């Protein structure tokens, strides 16, 4: 299959969006849903074809001397800023782009299919806004695909905004619910704030590079400048501002942009709230695809980041801290989707850390004669995580659909009622906990190896977080499916959902089992050359052991109803409450945005405008008016006063004349 088919991969969702958005609203709901699924199915088939061609074909210049090169399929000008600075809208395929195509299309297809069942009530009637929902899904898929195949930094920025808006629209899908509106607004504004940094980063970087392209077709792209010491990029490395090079500033700002989308601390606050959206949306956007855009962005600029160790260190620290922080919060959440959301944050932080631990002192760390193991591991984990996290979310969706609640205490003991869902969820948990041979084990293991290689401290820290992951995932699992007998709250007993919802679960579960055997090391590496890896038995065994300890602990505490969790919570009540309240980050933001910015800046400015600026002009008018009124008194209309004035004038004139004549 020619690589130029990628255009169709991008175009079909766009056309679906336009069609469903403009025409679909007048059509039958089910028909639009089926149309959406069909469109997505075609997209997915094409995407698989393109990805397979890219990875295993040789025809279109993707393999040169055993190294996979980026292939620019098409790259027309979109907006010319100046002769050199041109924003292009193109399609570029390289290992990570091809991999992302597969991930996005797979998850998106699953979600499309799943939503056919999920977005209906128990009688099979589609919800209000069903067409809109599918239109937005198509829009999101289009934006995300456009993002990953971007040929230049600015295109990534453009699609960053687009996915942000799609996410906004989908989180706020239930637009009558205040919580959903609030969450969607928060998500948009926080990511927008991050995008501001991204934009500034782009501005700084492009000022030196004079191009946005990664690999230029006619001009040299950013990556092409890396080897050339005369290139303007080198200048960016030496120009300093406040002690750091322009390059470091630019890359740090760009990372902040990515951190906003990828929910890194302290910009993570929007993600848990984003769970107000429909659950399939959470699975697609807020677990599998959009939230890894930040990771993707850093990976995309990986060769640049390697040059600037400062930026890498920031990523490393932020990533490692976020991984722990989110895992800690996930351990105590009672809302299933929120717990999964924090788990997502933690896992994405894993990927970020993994990227950052690939280098030290401005050089890639050598492992087994290969470089950039962390990069490979990160991308691999991105892939596997997308699959099993989507699975977990879709399972959660099925449960929520069955019991009509997000809270753990409304669930309990569902294993008996929903066996398929239960098994799928278990597979997902095993995968994320890192139990071989499930997918998560392989990718997480590589990450840990890379972390240990960077330093023992990093490795231990990440291992600890991996253990916590196993614990909180199984805590959720046991609380939902076991703990105690289910109390039936509604007239329907919870049961496995229709095939449209279970089929995606089965497919994703299968992928979660086998995805670990994808030869990622040969396919996605930072320079395109295959990376030789081998299982590090020490790390592998220890991580499995840690995971098992976590699972065991969770089993002990949550398999059967008992008082142990309560006792433990009581033993350190303060810490528990803080974690449950997510360490008060939301309250902090609330304070900053409402008290400081809204009350402290906006209101005084608006008052200043009305009172001082407008007041000044009104005062001008008032003064004129008052003066006029003052003068008007002279024009009183009273003849007698006129006569007085007349007399005064006449007498004065006469007096003056006489004085002149007589004296």
């Amino acid at each position, binding site marked *: 299959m020619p690589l130029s088919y990628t255009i169709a991969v991008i175009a079909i969702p766009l056309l679906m969006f336009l069609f469903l958005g403009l025409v679909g609203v007048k059509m039958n709901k089910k028909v639009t849903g089926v149309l959406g699924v069909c469109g997505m199915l075609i997209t997915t088939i094409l995407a698989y074809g393109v990805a397979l061609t890219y990875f295993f074909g040789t025809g279109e210049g993707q393999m040169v001397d055993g190294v996979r090169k980026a292939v620019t399929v098409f790259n027309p000008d979109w907006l010319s800023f100046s002769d050199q600075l041109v924003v292009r809208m193109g399609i570029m395929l390289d290992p990570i782009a091809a991999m992302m195509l597969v991930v996005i299309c797979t998850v998106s297809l699953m979600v499309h299919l799943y939503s056919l069942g999920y977005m209906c009530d128990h009688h099979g009637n589609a919800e209000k806004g069903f067409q809109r929902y599918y239109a937005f899904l198509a829009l999101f898929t289009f934006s995300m695909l456009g993002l990953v195949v971007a040929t230049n930094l600015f295109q990534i920025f453009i699609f960053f905004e687009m996915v942000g808006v799609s996410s906004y629209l989908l989180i706020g899908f239930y637009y009558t619910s205040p919580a959903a509106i609030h969450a969607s607004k928060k998500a948009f504004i926080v990511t927008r704030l991050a995008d501001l940094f991204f934009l500034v980063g782009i501005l700084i970087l492009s000022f030196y590079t004079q191009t946005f392209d990664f690999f230029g077709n006619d001009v040299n792209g950013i990556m092409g400048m890396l080897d050339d010491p005369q290139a303007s990029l080198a200048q960016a490395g030496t120009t300093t501002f406040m002690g750091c090079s322009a390059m470091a500033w630019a890359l740090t700002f760009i990372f902040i942009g990515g951190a906003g989308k990828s929910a890194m601390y302290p910009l993570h606050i929007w993600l848990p709230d984003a769970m107000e959206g429909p659950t399939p949306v959470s699975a697609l956007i807020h677990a599998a695809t959009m939230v890894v855009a930040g990771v993707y962005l850093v990976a995309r600029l990986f060769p640049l980041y390697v040059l600037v160790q400062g930026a890498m260190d920031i990523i490393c620290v932020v990533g490692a801290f976020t991984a722990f922080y989110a895992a800690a919060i996930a351990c105590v959440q009672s809302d299933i989707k929120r717990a999964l959301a924090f788990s997502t944050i933690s896992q994405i932080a894993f990927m970020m850390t993994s990227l950052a631990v690939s280098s030290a002192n401005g050089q890639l760390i050598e492992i087994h004669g290969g470089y950039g193991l962390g990069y490979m591991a990160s991308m691999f984990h991105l892939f596997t995580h997308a699959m099993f996290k989507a699975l977990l979310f879709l399972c959660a969706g099925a449960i929520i659909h069955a019991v009509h609640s997000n809270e753990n205490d409304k669930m309990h003991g569902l294993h008996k009622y929903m066996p398929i869902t239960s098994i799928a969820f278990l597979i997902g948990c095993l995968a994320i906990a890192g139990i071989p041979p499930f997918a998560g084990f392989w990718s997480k293991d590589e990450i840990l190896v890379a972390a240990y290689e960077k330093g023992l401290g990093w490795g231990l820290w990440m291992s600890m977080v991996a253990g916590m992951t196993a614990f909180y995932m199984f805590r959720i699992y046991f609380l939902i499916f076991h703990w105690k007998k289910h109390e039936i709250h509604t007239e329907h007993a919870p049961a496995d959902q229709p095939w449209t919802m279970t089929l995606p679960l089965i497919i994703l579960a299968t992928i979660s089992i086998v995805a670990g055997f994808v030869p990622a090391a040969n396919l996605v590496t930072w320079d395109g050359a295959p990376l030789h890896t081998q299982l590090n038995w020490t790390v592998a065994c220890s991580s499995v052991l840690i995971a098992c300890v976590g699972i065991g602990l969770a089993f002990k505490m949550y398999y059967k109803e008992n008082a142990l969790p309560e006792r433990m919570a009581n033993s350190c009540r303060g810490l528990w409450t803080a974690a449950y309240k997510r360490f008060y980050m939301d309250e902090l933001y609330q304070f900053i945005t409402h008290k400081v910015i809204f009350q402290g800046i906006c209101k005084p400015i608006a008052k200043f405008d009305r009172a001082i600026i407008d007041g000044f002009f009104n005062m001008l008018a008032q003064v004129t008016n008052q003066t006029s009124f003052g003068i008007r008194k002279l024009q009183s209309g009273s003849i007698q006063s006129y006569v*007085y004035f007349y*007399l005064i004038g*006449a*007498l004065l004139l*006469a*007096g003056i004349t*006489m004085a002149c004549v*007589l004296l």
Partner: protein
Amino acid sequence: MESLGNIIMYFVIALAIIVFSVLTVTSRKILRSATYLLFVLFATAALYFQLDYAFLGAVQIAVYAGGIVVLFVFSILLTQKPGEDAKPLDSHHRWLGLLAAVAGIAVCAVALFSYTQFCGQQLPDMADPDIAQIGHFLLSTDKFGYLLPFEAVSVLLLACIIGGVVIARRR
């Protein structure tokens, strides 16, 4: 040297003018004001007679004293309730008015007294202009003819009549 009768006549007229003028503007009963005005006008007419302008004096009596004052009296009777006096003036108004009047008089007086070359002029002899002559002048277009103003005044009077009718007409 004037005849004594003339001089006495003059003083009587001058005194009448001064006294009745002051009374006209100070009386609080408006009807009395009008009456005093009538006396002033008569005195003026007398002055004209003394100055040998008999026709003018006649006109003064006929038009002014006979016409205008009657108009005043009628309008006073139409607008004034019997026994209603003007309110006494507050003092600052009176003093202000007095000051203005006195200042005006003073300035004029200073001017008059400083131009002594004609102020001391004797009364020259003059024949009383006869009516025929006046009529001739009024209707002639010669150098001293007043036909144009005469016609203008007639138009004015016409306009005035119409205006008076239109304004005073009860709607």
